[in-house]
């Protein structure tokens, strides 16, 4: 019977050259829903504790969503997982585009890369034909050149190419894997892991079809999901302006990370916003990932002036803050150019921007000088400085080589107190969310197994600005008053629900814009689509969310096995120790504050005390030990993770009952 699965898992060992397609154990996959979930299971089984993330023991897993390749709205997502080189902990990164669907059309749901090739290679998958090919001529090429070269060599413009650029080859710890030029599996250094395996690219072409088990029922659920997704007005703004639609809004809220998180505002932020890209003529077209109904992805090009010809996808909201405001500039052409460099060198724009702005602040404070930088004047917003540093980082040359390990390592090597403005935790640079004004986000970022970042748990509902978000908060906490971001109350409950839902979303292969950002695709709808597609009947919203929690606990267990404890669940020094100024001198504690709102925090800071209170409640809710953050046996057993509990116990890393 068809089941939405392609039916095979492809193991490729680059050390031995062995290529082994294996039948997929669908029941085991569905226990973890798929993609991110099953990847986490494979990672747990295949990567021994203590493995060097850049050594041959690490594996690189490409896992498609269980609904990827079907017509389920926004189901084009693929999860790339490995042990992360930036953090030494669990890493998953989700990517859109069409690559994942193509892998399924070729007949494989999962691709597991093991070992290390003796010399540069690329992998070619054409349905049943899988080859490890020489990549000597591709090595050294940027993402655009390499992708084009593969398309030409195969004479097939429709081949889907996932590849690394110079940054991945040079093992920059925030190197990305780029899928067909525009879609990035970016965070945490997956590209460095691919580079460490001497694997330049994975090119895929498939001619098969994905069929679902109960087509009529599936189609009904899909139509409902599409209709529900269009209910939220932001579906429209998202299509018109993409993620950078919200730049001016967030700046108005005083929460737009600027000047390396020293400020929540920058003058004329509108000049790096989605609407400006449209009005100034930079936006050329809009694009969607496989089966997307929002098409938030845009394509921009500069037609005249100093950066004529620069082009690329986005720039997204995150990039506008990381390479723009964070570096002290609202020069949108510069951001488009810097974004292009990151995308062709294969680097995460968030982390790349973060190291540059950390260096700028260090330069301003005299901690590093132009002697260190080889003459580059790292003043805020200096275009030459930003662009030349990005190039140096990707090539691992000059001062850039000192930044290529990310901001934690850079600050450690420079010292002189520069750790205080290294905006990272667990070794990952924080994404561009001002967690000092949104405490659900603060908690979610602190406990995120991959580091402080929004793409694990989006708690937009806590802002209370949308009816769907308020209804959700009411459902979770029993009272919509808790849809208020500047309180510690009920954050643990709100975060855990979103963790479960986000994990399930990733695992079935949908985009979080359909679920936790827009509320249209509820867990109930997700469960119905999954049941109809796979022909299983055990999915309803509760079991789906529980499976999400199983994924989250397995990810947590991976980190615990690596030695992580409660002390790792924290936020960047600056955010824990420096107060963010309020958005206006006019306080909201006058008559404008509602009398019955939850107790607000006194100051915009993620202090130890605030964080500790939320962490206590969060661990308690999860059934994890408060002192160590480790899971209890009972918690893991209840989730069907008996063997995980047993292994942690053998390692002496299970919480005491």
């Amino acid at each position, binding site marked *: 019977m068809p089941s939405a699965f392609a039916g095979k898992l492809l193991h490729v060992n680059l050390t031995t050259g062995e290529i082994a397609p294996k039948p997929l154990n669908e029941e085991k996959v569905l226990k973890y829903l798929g993609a991110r979930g099953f990847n986490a299971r494979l990672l747990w089984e295949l990567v021994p504790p203590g493995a060097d993330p850049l050594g041959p023991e690490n594996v690189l897993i490409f896992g498609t969503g269980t609904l990827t390749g079907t017509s389920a709205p926004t189901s084009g997502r693929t999860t790339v997982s490995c042990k992360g080189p930036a953090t030494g902990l669990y890493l998953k990164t989700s990517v859109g585009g069409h690559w994942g669907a193509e892998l399924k059309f070729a007949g494989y749901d999962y691709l597991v890369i093991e070992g290390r090739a003796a010399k540069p290679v690329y992998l070619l998958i054409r349905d049943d034909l899988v080859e490890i090919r020489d990549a000597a001529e591709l090595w050294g090429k940027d993402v655009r050149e390499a992708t084009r070269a593969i398309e030409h060599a195969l004479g097939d413009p429709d081949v889907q190419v996932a590849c690394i650029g110079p940054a991945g080859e040079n093992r920059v710890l925030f190197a990305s894997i780029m899928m067909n030029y525009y879609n990035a599996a970016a965070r945490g250094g997956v590209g460095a892991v691919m580079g460490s395996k001497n694997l330049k690219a994975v090119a895929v072409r498939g001619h098969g079809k994905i069929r679902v088990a109960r087509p009529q029922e599936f189609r009904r659920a899909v139509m409902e999901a599409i209709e529900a997704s269009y209910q939220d007005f932001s579906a429209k703004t998202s299509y018109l302006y993409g993620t950078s639609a919200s730049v001016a809004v*967030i700046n*108005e*809220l*005083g929460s737009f990370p600027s000047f390396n998180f020293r400020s929540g505002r920058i003058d004329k932020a509108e000049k790096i916003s989605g609407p400006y890209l449209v009005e100034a003529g930079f936006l050329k077209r809009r694009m969607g990932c496989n089966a997307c109904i929002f098409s938030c992805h845009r394509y921009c090009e500069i037609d005249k002036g100093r950066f004529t010809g620069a082009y690329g996808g986005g720039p997204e*909201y995150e990039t506008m803050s990381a390479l723009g405001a964070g570096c002290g500039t609202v020069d949108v052409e510069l951001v488009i150019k810097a974004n292009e460099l990151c995308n062709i060198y294969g680097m995460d724009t968030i982390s790349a921007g973060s190291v540059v702005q950390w260096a700028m602040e260090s330069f301003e404070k005299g901690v590093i000088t132009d002697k260190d930088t080889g003459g580059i004047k790292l003043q805020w917003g200096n275009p030459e400085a930003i662009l030349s540093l990005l190039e140096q980082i990707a090539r691992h040359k000059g001062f850039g080589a000192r930044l290529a390990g990310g901001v934690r390592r850079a600050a450690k090597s420079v010292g002189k107190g520069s750790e205080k403005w290294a905006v990272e935790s667990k070794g990952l640079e924080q994404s561009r969310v001002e967690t000092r004004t949104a405490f659900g986000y603060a908690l979610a970022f602190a406990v995120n197994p991959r580091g402080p970042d929004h793409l694990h748990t989006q708690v937009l509902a806590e802002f209370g600005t949308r009816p769907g978000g308020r209804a959700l908060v009411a459902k979770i906490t029993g009272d919509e008053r808790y849809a208020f971001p500047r309180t510690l109350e009920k954050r643990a409950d709100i975060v855990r629900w979103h963790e479960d839902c986000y994990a399930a979303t990733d695992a079935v292969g949908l985009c979080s814009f359909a679920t936790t950002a827009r509320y249209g695709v509820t867990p109930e709808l997700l469960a119905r689509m999954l049941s109809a597609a796979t022909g299983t009947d055990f999915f309803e919203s509760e079991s789906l969310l529980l499976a999400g929690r199983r994924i989250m606990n397995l990810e947590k267990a991976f980190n615990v096995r690596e030695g992580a404890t409660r002390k790792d669940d924290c936020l960047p020094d600056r955010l824990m120790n420096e107060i963010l100024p309020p958005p206006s001198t*006019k306080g*909201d504690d006058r008559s*404008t504050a509602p009398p019955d709102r939850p107790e607000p925090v006194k100051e915009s800071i993620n202090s130890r005390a605030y964080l500790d209170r939320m962490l206590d409640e969060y661990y308690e809710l999860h059934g994890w030990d408060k002192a160590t953050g480790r899971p209890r046996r009972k918690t893991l057993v209840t989730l069907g993770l008996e063997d995980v509990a047993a292994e942690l116990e053998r390692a002496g890393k299970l919480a005491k009952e």
Partner: protein
Amino acid sequence: MEDVNRQITITVKLFAGAFPERICLALSPDARVRDLMSKVKGKDFKSSKREKSPLPLQDVAQEDLLLILNGRPIQNLQGYDTPLEDGDVLAVFPVMAGG
């Protein structure tokens, strides 16, 4: 004796496109966001420039407008019942989400 005719001045920033258009409005001291918005909608949503936007504000339903008063979303205050004070700044956006 208190001056009953005293008025308060509120700055409104309308984000129909990339850049805000600022207007200043005088209101009675007991005015709330609701009163301000009915005044704004009546006369100011329809300037020719704003109508050219891909998202003309007059076409956006009330619940799909995001109103930010002095840097706080009004839903975190008292919604449309939020009282206003002299010198307040209200920013008006169509709803955006995602990042």
